[in-house]
C-alpha cells in the first residue's frame, strides 16, 4: 500500500482524513498512484491532472522523501520508501496566491 497525503481542498472533496493508502497494481509510479486514487475516489478525477491530456495540473506538486518529484516522468519509479509505505507521497497545492 502506498500512503498519500492530499491537500485540504481535495480531502474535503473526497471526504477523507489526512492520509489515505491506495493499492497500486504494477510498478509504483506517479501515474499508478493517481490511477489508484481516481479509481478509489472518482471525485478526484480531473483534479490532479488534466482529464484530456493527463498532464499534471500546473499548480499541483508531488513531493516525497523531501524531494520535489513534480517534474519526474509519470512512469518513473517512486522512491523505495514510498513504494514500501514507509514515507508518504504528498500531493500539494502550489503556493501561488490566495
Amino acid at each position: 500500500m502506498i500512503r498519500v497525503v492530499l491537500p485540504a481542498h481535495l480531502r474535503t472533496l473526497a471526504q477523507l482524513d489526512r492520509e489515505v493508502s491506495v493499492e497500486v497494481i504494477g510498478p509504483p509510479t506517479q501515474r499508478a498512484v493517481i490511477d489508484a486514487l481516481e479509481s478509489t475516489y472518482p471525485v478526484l478525477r480531473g483534479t490532479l491532472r488534466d482529464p484530456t491530456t493527463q498532464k499534471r495540473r500546473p499548480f499541483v506538486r508531488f513531493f516525497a522523501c523531501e524531494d520535489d518529484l513534480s517534474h519526474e516522468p509519470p512512469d518513473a519509479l517512486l522512491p523505495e520508501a514510498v513504494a514500501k509505505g514507509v514515507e508518504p507521497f504528498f500531493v500539494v497545492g502550489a503556493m501561488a496566491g490566495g
Partner: protein
Amino acid sequence: MSGVRVLVGTRKGAFVLTSDGKRRDWDISGPHFGGWEIYHVKGSPAEPDRVYASQSTGWFGQLIQRSDDGGATWQPVGNQFQYDGVTGTHQWYDGTPHPWEFARVWHLEPSLTDPDTVLAGVEDAGLFRSADGGQSWSELSGLRGHGSGPSWQPGAGGMCLHTIICDPSDPERIFVAISAAGAFRSDDGGTTWRPVNRGLHSEGIPDEDAEVGHCVHRLAMHPSRPHVLYMQKHWDVMRSDDAGESWYEISGDLPTDFGFAIDVHAHEPETVYVVPIKSDSEHFPPDGKLRVYRSRTGGNEWEALTEGLPQANCYVNVLRDAMAVDTLDSCGVYFGTTGGQVYASADAGDSWAPIVRDLPAVLSVEVQTLP
C-alpha cells in the same frame, strides 16, 4: 407563504440566502465549497430543489456540483468537458492563433422543462449540454464550428461563453453571448448557429460594425416577449425587437454606458435595470456612488435608484452574472458586488438594503421564487 432563495457564487465559495415573501429577514447558509471559486449557481425552473453549481480553482480544475434539496446538500457530478473533434484555434490577445483550451464553466442554464437537462457555457468559449443531471457533458459544437470561431478573441476576463437564454416560446431557439465574439442564435436546439450582431458598433475592433468580434457583456429577455432582447455591451446598452436580427442603442441619458449586468422586471417587459460602471479601465461606479439605473420605457430614459445604496466612496464592481429578479407580485431585484455585498430591493428598485455585507467578491447572483 411564498419565499425566495438567492443563490450567490463568490470567489471563495457559494452562499444560499433565503427569506419569506416579505424579504426583510434572511437566513444565510454557507460557505459551501469554501475556498473554491463559484462562478455560477442556478436552480432548475422545472424542479426548484434541483440546483447546479460551477466550482473551480486554478489549482484543481473544474467540478460541477448538484443539489437535490435546494442547496442544503451537494454531490459532485461529471466534470469532463471535452471539445468535440479537432479543436482548432482562436485568436490570442496578440492576434496569433491559439489552441482552444478548456478553463472553466462560467454559466449553467438548466432547461425550462427538464431538471436533468442543463447547458454550460465555458471558457474557452463553447457550449455543452448534459441530459443526465450533470453526470456527462457533450459539446454543441455547431457554435464553435459555425465558421467564425478562428477569429474569436478573448476579452480581458478570458474568452468566455457567459450568457445562455432559452426561448420559453420556442424550445428550439437558444441565444448565447461570448466575450469577445458577440451574440449568437440557434433555431434548431443548438445544432447550428449564426451570429446576431447587426447594429452593434465597437470602437475597439478593426471593423467597428463587424459580424463578430464584439465584447457583449450580458443579454436579458423578458419571458413574455422573447423576441425583445436587451444587451449590456462593453460600451453601449442595446436593444433588439426582432430576436437579435438587428440592434439599436438605448443608452440614452445614462451617466456612462459601460457596465456588465442587465436585467428585466419580472412583470413589466419595458422596465430594464443596469448598473453603470465608469469605464473599461476603471471598473467602479462613477463618482463613488453605487446607483442602479431603471428605465420604464424600454431604454433611453433612465432614472437613478439610490435609496439604501452607498452614495459616497463606493468603488465596487457588479459583474455580468450578478443581478437577478424574483417573480413575486412586487418584483424583487438583487445584485452582488465585488466588495461582497448582496443588495435586495423588494419594491422593484425604489429602495435597497443589504442582505449581507461581507462575503467574498460576488461573481453571480440568481434568484428562485418559491411556492
